[in-house]
């Protein structure tokens, strides 16, 4: 397949989904008597002054970062038809433990930050590992166990926060862990704006961005260019075929969940290292669930997930100026919600189109149609045939 066609089929479903969502939202806006054009104008208006515009861009990128990581974590599981719904719990546990250990130790700067990141990844992996162990030893569906573990994580994090990990004074209205010292914080990237000759607002672009990009590239290489990645994808496409060719399915489940959990452990770190420096009772929640939507929209591909995360963050940011302009900000919610539904439908449609094209192509080149057209079957849930 040529590059253009590959990119085309890759973008077909998400573009279709976004289009459907926009159309539905426009219809709703029309029914409410609001001009969709005006709403769109407000949404793309980033501000009047250069400083405001850069602040808006920073806000979008900072919001997109955790969404990207959450989407990535979910997608690693999805590629193997493993539903890691537990990213929420994994990042909560990872963040609170990383915050506490980060605040408890004193190390030189790069080591301190590295330690916090390693702890976060390790805790996320362990929490996800429970799911994997339950699945391979007892056959517990990862969907059930990971959802249940979310509740346990929430309760446990709350217990730890109010008990042994508490760092805030008695009676403070927000309970938090102790603050991570200066050496364990990641500075902003706003120096880049100076270099580019742009305005430099007080809002700092998270330094974690660099690391997140590296993780994204790393995951892509791992999935697409290594033996492990091949085994993982093969198991996702057809467990029986994979195990027939010598892949140990149970081992793959454990490895994949550990990897997914490790990435999930990073979700809370951009905020932790770049802004809050502590885990508190009002630390951003729900990122794990949004990650599912982002992964679906990004078709489980790191590049696609990055775009999906930025789109989500862009929509999120728009809700504030929309309210300020007395326009219904629920438009944002409607678009985000319909994207989730539309993407499932669009994936199915796009899958059928490409499958039909592949069948037609293979018919032309004589030979019988392929048993299981591997190239098109990358979307979990809609196509997966069974569990390993």
């Amino acid at each position, binding site marked *: 397949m040529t590059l253009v066609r590959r990119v085309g089929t890759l973008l077909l479903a998400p573009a279709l989904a976004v289009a459907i969502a926009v159309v539905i939202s426009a219809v709703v806006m029309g029914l409410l008597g609001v001009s969709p054009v005006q709403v769109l104008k407000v949404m793309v208006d980033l501000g009047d002054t250069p400083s405001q515009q850069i602040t808006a861009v920073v806000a979008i990128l900072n919001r997109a970062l955790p969404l990207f990581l959450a989407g990535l974590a979910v997608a690693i599981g999805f590629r193997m038809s493993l539903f890691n719904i537990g990213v929420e719990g994994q990042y909560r546990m990872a963040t609170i433990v990383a915050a506490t250990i980060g605040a408890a130790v004193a190390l030189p700067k790069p080591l301190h930050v590295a330690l916090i990141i390693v702890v976060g990844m390790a805790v996320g992996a362990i929490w996800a590992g429970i799911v994997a162990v339950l699945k391979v030893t007892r056959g517990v569906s990862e969907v059930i166990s990971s959802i249940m573990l979310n509740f346990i994580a*929430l309760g446990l994090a709350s217990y730890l926060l109010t008990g042994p990990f508490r760092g805030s004074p008695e009676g403070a209205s927000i309970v938090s862990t102790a603050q991570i010292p200066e050496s364990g914080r990641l500075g902003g990237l706003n120096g880049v704006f100076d270099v580019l000759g742009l305005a430099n607002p007080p809002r700092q672009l998270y330094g974690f961005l660099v690391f997140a990009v590296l993780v994204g590239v790393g995951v892509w290489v791992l999935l697409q260019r290594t033996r492990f990645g091949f085994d993982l994808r093969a198991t996702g496409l057809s467990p029986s075929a994979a195990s027939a060719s010598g892949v140990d399915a149970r081992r793959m489940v454990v490895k994949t969940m550990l990897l997914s959990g490790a990435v999930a452990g990073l979700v809370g770190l951009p905020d932790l290292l770049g802004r809050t420096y502590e885990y508190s009772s009002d630390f951003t929640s729900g990122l794990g669930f949004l990650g599912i939507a982002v992964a679906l929209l990004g078709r489980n591909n790191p590049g696609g997930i990055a775009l999906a995360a930025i789109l989500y963050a862009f929509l999120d940011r728009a809700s504030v100026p929309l309210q300020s302009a007395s326009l*219904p900000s629920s438009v944002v919610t409607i678009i985000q919600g319909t994207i989730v*539904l539309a993407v499932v439908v669009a994936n199915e449609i796009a899958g059928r189109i490409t499958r039909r094209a592949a069948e037609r192509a293979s018919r032309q080149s004589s030979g019988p149609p392929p048993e299981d057209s591997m190239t098109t079957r990358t979307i979990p849930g809609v196509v997966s045939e069974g569990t390993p």
Partner: protein
Amino acid sequence: MRRVRGMKAAALLLAGSMALAACASDEDSSSSGSGSSGGSSASSGDLQIGLAYDTGGRGDKSFNDSAYAGVEAAIKDLGGNVTELTPNADASNRVDLLTQLADDGNNPVIAVGFAFADALAEVAPQYPDTQFAVVDSSVEGTGLDNVTGLLFAANEGSFLGGVAAALKSESGHIGFVGGVESPLIQEFEAGYVAGAQAAKPGIVIDRQYISPNGDFSGFSDPAKGKILAQGMFQSGADIVYHAAGGSGQGVFEAASEAGGRAIGVDSDQYETVGDPALQAVIMTSVLKRVDNAIQGYLTDYSEGSISGGTDEVNDLESGGVGLSTSGGQIDDIKTQIDDYTQKIVSGDIEVPTTP
């Protein structure tokens, strides 16, 4: 095979619905057609008030609505208009809300809820010419000299609630349902328990929270509130006090079904509950006059007497907290209530803030 596939599809739907649910509570407030919202470039001279709600926004029949009522009353007296903003579902954009309000030229900007404390610490120094106020959070000692903290002695109001419950209880057994086990709500619990024990030593008090700290679902989960209250009524309690925001609805329902009674919170829930069957069980409500506090703040602001960097404590003495009497169910114990009020105001009774 088909079954597995069906289950996976179901799981996907479930996950999708969770993601949707995560977005869903972000109801807009500015579209509800109030003539006073929006319009940041209105004529000068009038007040231009920026109002940043806590999650849920306007329409919660409680905290946020009370804040709006205060702003509305102030506008009626002083003129001006208000721009209202509601955070997104996970409330990750609080900084953006305040930035937008300040950028639009609103002054003063009022943040509803202690959760804005961190966001204010970031935004307020960037806008030294704008005055900010924050409900339920102390600013003294934070060094923010253009922020005013609007605080409430919730423990004092709850103390009176405890007195009323103890005096009206026939079984000598009462209950407390908290929304989220956070220090703020524990203050309600502490006051309630102290009041009940002062009025009737040895009284049995069941205390339960809907969700642990950090999980804010406890303020919007009437089903769980109902289950907890049902348990209390079944074990012999006859009056249950809730400090659980929207979950209080479930407590009222449980009281109605069990033939017990309930005590509301924040606003006069006898008036706001909107269901005659439930109205009958609401004995009184522990008021937290966010509206009065905000109206007072705005009046002070328009007179130029706001300096910032200080806290304004609204307690029994200033009428910032108290008991509602709608429905007349506590009229017979009015003298005792007034008695305790006097003792608290004069300092004879020191109400604890932690249980």
